[in-house]
């Protein structure tokens, strides 16, 4: 089982090969096979979970030579730690649900759709497990393709605009990241780094200017993906146009790429710059929270509303991450999972009513509770999870984020962000009220059927997870804790800038206990610690240009 | 004496070159061009390259220009009406003058390499220009020479393909 990670990642591709041999017209076979593949994949990923040792090290490492040409050495270097573990599980968990949701939603071009879904899964998993920067980049980009097709082919009215916008928006960011990646590699090479392995770069000391530029490039790419205000406008379009399964995956997993990117790459690689920009990013995150909430409040399309709520939620995640402490980051990580579950569920819910009524305008609904009590209950629970009611998963993450960021220098940001709690209640409950409550006066709504068995099957795991993670988040936190602690220690390289003591608080007592300032400005090209021993270097490349 | 001769030839060459681009009738242009070629042949003689002068006359004035004139006749092209695009002429001329300025300034600024070969006027007179050329061509420059054969073959095939009435 040493290569179970590879197996998880590439099993969907095998599924694609399988699908190729199934005739186009046997739709149910196609669907069932895809479901089976994703389910099997989920089971396989559970073996990862069970085999995962709770420590800060990367596990299930596979490290093989891949490309070695010119100054570059790229390796097939994968592994997971507590941070990526849950995202991998989230991905494999969401996929069967997404597949199941397409059974009646997608009637045309089923085969192609399923192929897209499976390819997407590989792309996402690959990005989460890559420990090689180059490999990560490849998966990061590859993900775009199936998503693009999903939005563009099976999307709504304005699908092409949305698909192209999604693709190019993301592409612009990631290409700048590519340049930064290359630059980083050469910087690393000067310091004796031998390949694109992420772990080596963690010990690389860069001077401030370099860090700032590189951080900006990485942060930009990830910010687009997150998406952070003001780079978020692709998201509502993409979500509104995408088919349900697409929206679910986009919200549940794809957006996590951005935040994961910060946690895994942008911050630990450039801790000083991250610290420097923390107030700025936190500001954007907070603006995003409030802004998206306000905009969501006045939406007329349910799906767009949920899309904007995603922006707000991910604002919380970003705030937590940039708190740079265990609580904030754990909260951010949990919130990623929570958002995956609850927003995924919200999109499924929107999908259910869309399938029934072929409209998503809030004004077309009203009083559905009467006709669809089960649906109403589920919608309610998911809504509550989304607004972070204690006892549901949404709360744990949000709370940890807030408390974490309150502990850090981002105190005033937290105060503003906390008010997002109010706004989220406003827009979510308002939409719930307008859709589910009131008179059932639209004759078209009076014949709606409640959820069927398949739809229930889709929702039950999500509902269960909402409560499990809300009431007993310990296993989730425990598994990621060592990795988060390690991350925090990586960030602590820089002196904490303790300027943001709220003026309203007494100045008499010592404010934040700032860790002893370490010299952050290392001289350029400062030699780096030798590459860690777990990376077996097969080919030592002369760091200097062979010319 | 020689300088004067050079100046006269230059004037003729330049004037006829200007005529090439100003004559309305292509035939006249062609004839002016032949005139320029002759002037160039004269230069070659002055530059101790009689063989080059000979093939200049034979190949250029003789073969290529005959071909061109023949084509002009064959196509029986009407004399152009007035040039419609005067701005085109103006811009083109300005640009050409810029080219000229560039090149002249360039030439005045440039350092030509010192003589590298032992070729002198005397040597040429003694051995004969053709022989020297031939010797070089068939030893050092054997490969380019061979390539020209392919080039000519291609040209033949090409013109056949393109211009033959029925293939």
């Amino acid at each position, binding site marked *: 089982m040493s290569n179970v990670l590879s197996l998880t990642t590439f099993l969907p591709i095998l599924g694609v090969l399988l699908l190729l041999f199934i005739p186009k017209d046997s739709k149910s076979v196609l669907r069932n096979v895809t479901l089976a593949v994703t389910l099997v994949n989920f089971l396989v990923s559970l073996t990862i979970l069970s085999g995962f040792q709770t420590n800060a090290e990367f596990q299930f490492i596979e490290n093989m030579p891949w490309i070695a040409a010119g100054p570059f050495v790229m390796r097939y270097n994968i592994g997971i730690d507590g941070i990526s573990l849950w995202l991998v599980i989230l991905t494999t968990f969401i996929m069967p649900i997404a597949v199941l949701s397409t059974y009646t939603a997608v009637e045309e071009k089923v085969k192609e759709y399923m192929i897209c879904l499976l390819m997407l899964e590989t792309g996402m998993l690959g990005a989460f497990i890559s420990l090689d920067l180059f490999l990560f980049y490849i998966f990061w980009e590859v993900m775009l393709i199936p998503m693009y097709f999903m939005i563009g082919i099976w999307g709504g009215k304005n699908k092409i605009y949305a698909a192209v916008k999604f693709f190019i928006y993301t592409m612009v960011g990631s290409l700048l990241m590519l340049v930064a990646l290359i*630059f980083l590699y050469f910087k690393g090479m000067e310091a004796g780094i031998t390949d694109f392995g992420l772990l080596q770069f963690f010990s690389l000391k860069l001077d401030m200017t370099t860090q700032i530029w590189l951080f900006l490039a990485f942060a930009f790419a990830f910010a687009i993906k997150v998406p952070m205000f003001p780079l978020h406008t692709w998201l509502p379009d993409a979500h509104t146009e995408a088919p349900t399964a697409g929206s679910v995956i986009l919200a549940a997993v794809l957006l996590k790429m951005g935040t994961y990117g910060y946690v895994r790459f942008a911050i630990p690689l450039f801790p000083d710059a991250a610290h420097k920009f923390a107030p700025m990013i936190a500001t954007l995150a907070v603006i995003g929270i409030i802004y998206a909430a306000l905009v969501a409040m006045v939406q007329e399309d349910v799906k767009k509303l949920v899309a904007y709520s995603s922006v707000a939620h991910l604002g919380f995640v970003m705030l937590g991450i940039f708190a740079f402490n265990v609580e904030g980051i754990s909260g951010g990580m949990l919130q990623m999972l929570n958002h995956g579950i609850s927003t995924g569920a919200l999109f499924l819910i929107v999908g259910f009513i869309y399938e029934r009524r072929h409209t998503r305008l809030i004004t077309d609904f009203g009083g559905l509770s009467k006709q669809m009590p089960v649906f109403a209950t589920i919608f309610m629970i998911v809504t509550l999870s989304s607004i972070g009611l204690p006892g549901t998963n949404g709360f744990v993450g949000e709370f940890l984020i807030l408390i974490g960021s309150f502990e850090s220098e981002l105190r005033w940001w937290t105060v503003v962000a906390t008010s997002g709690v109010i706004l989220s209640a406003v827009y979510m409950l308002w939409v719930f009220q307008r859709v589910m409550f009131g008179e059932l006066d639209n004759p078209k709504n009076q014949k709606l059927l409640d959820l069927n068995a398949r739809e229930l099957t889709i929702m039950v795991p999500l509902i269960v997870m909402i409560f499990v993670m809300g009431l007993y988040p310990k296993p989730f936190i425990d598994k990621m804790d060592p990795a988060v602690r390690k991350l925090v220690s990586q960030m602590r390289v820089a002196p904490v800038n303790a300027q943001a003591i709220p003026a309203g608080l007494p100045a008499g007592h010592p404010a934040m206990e700032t860790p002893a300032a370490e010299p952050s400005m290392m001289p350029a090209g400062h030699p780096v610690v030798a590459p860690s021993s777990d990376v077996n270097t097969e080919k030592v490349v002369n760091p200097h240009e062979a010319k | 004496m020689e300088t004067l001769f050079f100046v006269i030839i230059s004037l003729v060459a330049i004037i006829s070159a200007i005529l090439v681009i100003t004559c309305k009738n292509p035939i006249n242009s062609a004839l002016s061009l032949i005139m320029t070629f002759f002037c160039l042949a004269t230069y070659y003689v002055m530059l101790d390259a009689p063989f080059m002068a000979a093939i200049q006359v034979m190949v250029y004035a003789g073969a290529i220009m005959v071909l061109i004139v023949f084509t002009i006749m064959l196509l029986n092209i009407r004399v152009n009406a007035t040039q419609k695009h005067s701005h085109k002429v103006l811009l083109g001329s300005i640009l050409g003058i810029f080219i000229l300025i560039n090149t002249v300034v360039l030439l005045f600024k440039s350092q030509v390499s*010192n003589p590298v070969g032992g070729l002198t006027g005397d040597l040429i007179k003694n051995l004969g220009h053709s022989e020297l050329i031939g*010797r070089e061509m068939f030893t050092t420059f054997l490969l380019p020479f061979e390539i020209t054969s*392919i080039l000519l073959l291609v040209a033949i095939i090409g013109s056949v393909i393109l211009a033959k009435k029925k293939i």
Partner: protein
Amino acid sequence: MDMISIPVVNMTPILPEIFLSALAMVLLLINVFGPSGQKSYLAYISFFGIVATAVLVGAGWGGHIESFSGSVVLDNFATFFKMIFLLAAGLAVLISDQYMEREGCNHGELYPLILFTVVGMMFMASGTDLMTIFLGLEVMSVSLYVLAGFNRANKKSNEAGLKYFLLGAFSTGFLLYGMALTYGATGTTRIYKIASVVGQMTLPSANIMLVAGMLLMMTGFLFKIAAVPFHMWTPDVYEGAPTPMTAFMSAGPKAAGFAALLRILLVAMPTLQVEWSQLLWVLAVLTMTVGNITALRQDNIKRMLAYSSIAHAGYALVGLTAGNGTATAGILFYMLSYTFMNIGAFAVIILIAKKGETNGNVMDFAGLGFKRPVLAVAMTIFLFSLAGMPPTAGFIGKFYLFSGAVQKGYIWLAVIGVLNSAASVYYYLRVMVYMYMKEPTEEFEWTQVTAPVALALIIAIAGTMIPGIVPSIILEYAQEAVKLI
């Protein structure tokens, strides 16, 4: 008066050229004396001839032989490029037959001309004398003029040939003037000698004659690779020329131009890098930007790919600007992968187009994705590769090109490059939008895919995907090839 004794020369370096020329001549004869009518067999013969030549070329890998008193050299660099030319020619031959048959101009002379073009390009890549390079260039150009205008009955083809010819000849004038100046400044036309002369100059950039010569020579080659502002012919000629020839032209001569440029700039004038990299920096930016931006609004897909080809020249120029090992290997790799993906894309276009070069608009691809999924997937792969998406060869190529620039410190150049690349995605996506996201406008006409085209497509897909996933197999050779420069 003693006899001229023709020296004993080592023929090894030019064996492939000899073989190809001979093959071409044999084909000419067969064409005349062989069975008339169906000419497909000529395509097969030339394809196998090309394969055989490729074997011959491949056998020369690793050697370094100068011959013909320094006119030509056999080195890995030349070998690599020769492979690219052969590949381009091979694919072009494979996709020609069906097209030419449809357009009614399947003249037997086509194949010899393609082969002669390859011979010319080979001399450009292996020549170490300005004369050899120049003559190689001319053999290539003259053949291409003919090939561009090959479809005589078609007005567009005609115009393309004429345009290409007039502008090509015009650019030759500048090229030659540059060579003349270089000759004047260094006293020789031999690349290696130029290198040593230039190397001995204390301040080569002060000699404006040398610099101007270099610049004018570059002008000539930049014309061939379609760099701004010498690119204007490209869209028109690409649009007008018979599609297989467009495919060939976009890959082969571009690579040949880069081969010559690399050889001249990096071998003969490395000490002038300060000068030429400045120019190339600007030109690379212009080329990428103009190419990409203009392509955004093209409806004719051949024309669009022509602008895209300009943009790609720009990317390669980024690598040339950097001029270091990484970037030059990147250029080699990129040229190879560009050959695969671009000819592949043109192959699909051939299959979609109808007689008389109609049905060549982006809109005509509507609904292709589900009517002809295999073709559409192939096209998708090529387009993504052109757009530089992983895991295709196009991505790896760009990665190395931009890496070279970054390594050399041209970070902004790389940034502009990637932004361009992002913009380019739009028009590649546009094709895919039509293929997958729009319904066909009219009844779809099924074109049979003949065996050679299918083979070409398979080769192209393999050549696009495999180096994208395991690029080392090509990159190692590219790396070797540029070491000897």
